[in-house]
């Protein structure tokens, strides 16, 4: 008798214990999940927004338009400007490297200052002027403190209209460029990058690095550069972003002072789009010096203004764009520790937008790593993403949006690119709405089309790949 109550009591206590545990666990789950939202909802820092307004401004004399943001957090001003369709892909076959060399030479002396004195002048006034090219475009950047703006405007104007392009400086910059080309081949990743461009784009301008070829760089003369500048620097291809401690009127006048003497229209020819074969294949490149096997993947994608851009952007984010949280990193890195990291992203080349990605791993892990990649790729194409994943992607893309406004040069750059990509002056207000409007159905429709098992090129570089990977094509 004494045992029953005891039992009963015990059993009762057991239930009670379970109930208490459930309550604690429940409360813990509850507080845990609530905590995160609660911290955000109750934060004393919420409600602070990015108020800077983008204005389209028009220079009074030349009529050149630009996007502009006034910001006086610091007494500094930045401008970015782009000459579209003047990048390295437009270099003639026998002058590969001309666009890049031209960009380098613009700050090697201008007006009455030789290379040394020009750079000394920039340092003295803390003015930064630099030019660079990518495959599509030629761009320039100015950063100056407010007090030195007049001097900065004059120096920048001189780089565009009175560059010296002297023999000694050209010879030096050529030598430096040739060494940069050689350095690209020092690492397996550089060798893979070079090989991939060649294999995908072949003889098209996209197939060569922006630095150009050794023969091309060697053959460039001062006259080629002068010719490049007069052909490409025209108002019809010019896009400008200005940000910082400067008024709208001053910014408009600044544009006239620098750019108004440019010719109106460009004469040089457009280039064709490359014909790229995206049909499924694995290509191997033998490289004895590589301690890991490195892989690049290429697949078709869409241009910036395509209706499928945002859905594909989100599908890519979930697949390979979300850092350690992407599907590919979750499967390959976080679960199996196969790689330091894998990624994919959208490349927005004007004439051949594509999806590009990569990973690297030691030879013992390689087969599994490649298998996971292809497997995840096919799952994305067949099943798409879930509602939960869509929400996750939207949360990230929207709440990370303000991070791009971190410095005044980034602001100028965003503005110039908004104009270049034809996104509209209201893009900064609308971008998160564009993201919000993307539906699960659209993402999955687009994923099916672009994460296709038939359209995926994998190019691997490493030692003894043939023995490892069986029957694929191999370059020696």
């Amino acid at each position: 008798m004494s045992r029953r109550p005891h039992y009963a009591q015990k059993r009762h206590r057991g239930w009670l214990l379970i109930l208490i545990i459930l309550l604690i666990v429940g409360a813990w789950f509850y507080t845990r999940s609530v905590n995160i939202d609660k911290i955000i909802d109750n934060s004393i820092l919420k409600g602070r927004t990015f108020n800077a307004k983008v204005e389209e401004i028009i220079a009074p004399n030349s009529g050149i338009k630009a996007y502009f943001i006034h910001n006086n957090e610091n007494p500094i001003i930045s401008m970015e400007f782009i000459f579209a369709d003047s990048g390295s892909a437009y270099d003639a076959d026998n002058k590969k490297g001309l666009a890049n060399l031209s960009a380098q030479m613009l700050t090697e002396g201008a007006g009455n200052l030789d290379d040394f004195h020009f750079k000394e002048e920039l340092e003295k006034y803390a003015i930064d002027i630099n030019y660079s090219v990518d495959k599509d475009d030629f761009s320039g950047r100015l950063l100056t403190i407010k007090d030195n703006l007049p001097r900065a405007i004059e120096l920048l104007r001189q780089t565009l209209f009175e560059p010296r392009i002297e023999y000694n400086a050209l010879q030096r910059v050529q030598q430096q460029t040739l060494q940069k080309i050689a350095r690209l081949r020092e690492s397996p990743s550089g060798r893979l990058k070079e090989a991939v461009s060649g294999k995908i784009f072949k003889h098209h301008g996209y197939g060569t690095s922006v630095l150009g070829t050794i023969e091309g760089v060697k053959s460039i003369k001062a006259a080629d550069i002068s010719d490049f500048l007069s052909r490409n620097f025209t108002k019809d291809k010019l896009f400008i972003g200005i940000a910082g401690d400067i008024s709208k009127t001053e910014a408009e006048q600044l544009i006239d002072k620098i750019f108004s003497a440019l010719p109106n229209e460009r004469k040089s020819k457009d280039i064709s789009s490359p014909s790229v074969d995206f049909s499924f294949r694995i290509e191997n490149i033998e490289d004895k010096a590589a301690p890991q096997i490195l892989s690049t993947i290429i697949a078709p994608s869409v241009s910036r203004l395509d209706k499928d851009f945002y859905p594909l952007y989100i599908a890519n984010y979930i697949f390979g764009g979300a850092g350690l949280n992407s599907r590919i990193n979750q499967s390959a890195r976080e679960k199996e520790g196969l790689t330091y990291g894998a990624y994919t992203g959208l490349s927005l080349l004007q004439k051949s937008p594509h999806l590009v990605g990569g990973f690297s791993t030691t030879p013992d892990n390689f087969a599994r790593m490649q298998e996971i990649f292809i497997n995840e790729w096919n799952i994305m194409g067949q099943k798409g993403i879930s509602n939960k994943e869509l929400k996750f992607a939207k949360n990230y893309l929207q709440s990370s949006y303000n991070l791009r406004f971190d410095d005044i040069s980034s602001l100028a750059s965003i503005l110039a690119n908004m104009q270049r990509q034809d996104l509209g002056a209201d893009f900064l207000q609308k971008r998160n709405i564009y993201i919000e409007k993307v539906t699960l159905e659209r993402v999955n429709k687009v994923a099916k089309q672009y994460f296709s098992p038939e359209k995926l090129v994998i190019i691997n570089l490493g030692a003894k790949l043939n023995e490892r990977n069986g029957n694929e094509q191999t370059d020696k």
Partner: protein
Amino acid sequence: MKKKLLLILMLCTMSLVVSKTSKAELFGLSGYTLNNGMRLIVIPNHKAPIAKHMLWYKVGAADEKIGKGGSAHLLEHLMFRGTKKIKGQDFNRIMEENGADSNAFTSQDMTVYHQFIDISRLELAMFLEADRMKNLTIDNKSFETERQIVFQERKQVVENNPLYRFHEAVQRAFWQTHPYSRPITGTEEEILKLKIKDVKSIYKKYYNPNNAILVIAGNIEPDVAYKLAEKYYGAIPPHGKSNNKLPAENVGQTSISLSMKLPDIEISRVLRKYAAPSYNSGKEQIYAYMVLSKYLGEGETSKLYDNLVVQRKIATTISTDYNYTSLGGGSFTISATPAKGVTVNALLREIDDAVTSALKNLNNQELERVKTQMLTGLVYVKDNPQDAAQIVGMLALAGMSDAEIENYADNIKQVSLADVKNAAMMLQKPAQVEGIVEPEGDKR
């Protein structure tokens, strides 16, 4: 990729950006000490509703036990693998979902966790960072996986890059028996043998508020940041002790020539690395060395660049780099690339001559020119909250007070010609390491 190592200390930014500004304060920062001993530095920047949140622990690879190389770095990885409250990989998921750019890095003296984040989520980052300061859990599965990942990381970042192998060899020669001679990642053998207790012991001993510096830069007022820091971090009691390292005593007594021929190197490089004071080992001297470095080899108007690259075309690149933030002692490095047809030995001789001639021509007028370059445009350093937090954190970890960080301009102004000439005496003795890396075979 996530969790990069900070392999080269990066303070040359300080002298690249440059002020005529009469305002003496470089960043306009506010400093606090929390009740538990944690140092807080706030750098307001109201341009956009964003903030950089960086927690700097004063522990790095140099604090590892012999044979346990890579344990500080592996711990850094495991800090993303769950606590008692935030399980598994929820830290990464929550940060990503809230738009954070979250990462960490390990160097010889420090392990740093940082988030670049919308200001509305800063409190969340503080909550999560404070949580993993005290509540970390490490299970076997995560440990094994992360150990594999850091092994792959070493393969990808170090072994795939021949120049990196050269720089590790230079570090070994320069630091000799000092812990800095060992790779930050550990060697492959060390990584594969690490145990959970190796990383736990670092966590227990060094991950405490009194051994950490919190830097917040962005759209926040200093008093608000202080309140929040007390709210989230203030409850963690101090324990262990603050890791204040002494400078190395025996570095600088050797002179080693190191020559490597590597198969995948295409372009030869040379360097000379000299022992120099760091803030921790000789704080009163560092500004003169900064001026010396700027004068000789920072930028395209520097004396060595003008002489060897522009005028005489013996080199295609040359630069100097002065590291004064390392706790064990500083270093002054001259690095160059020979022009085509110039041998590495010929270039090294020419560097000697160019240094001698530059120092002979150094006068008060040149000194003023260089100082103007260093002081004009200093306002740029606080434009980007990410850069500002990075620079301030690095200097604070090197031991600088808030006032020392803010008074950069005044300290540079006070450097005299005699100070710089004294600093340059270092260059008249043989370098501690003369390093050459060349292509294998006859590629050159």
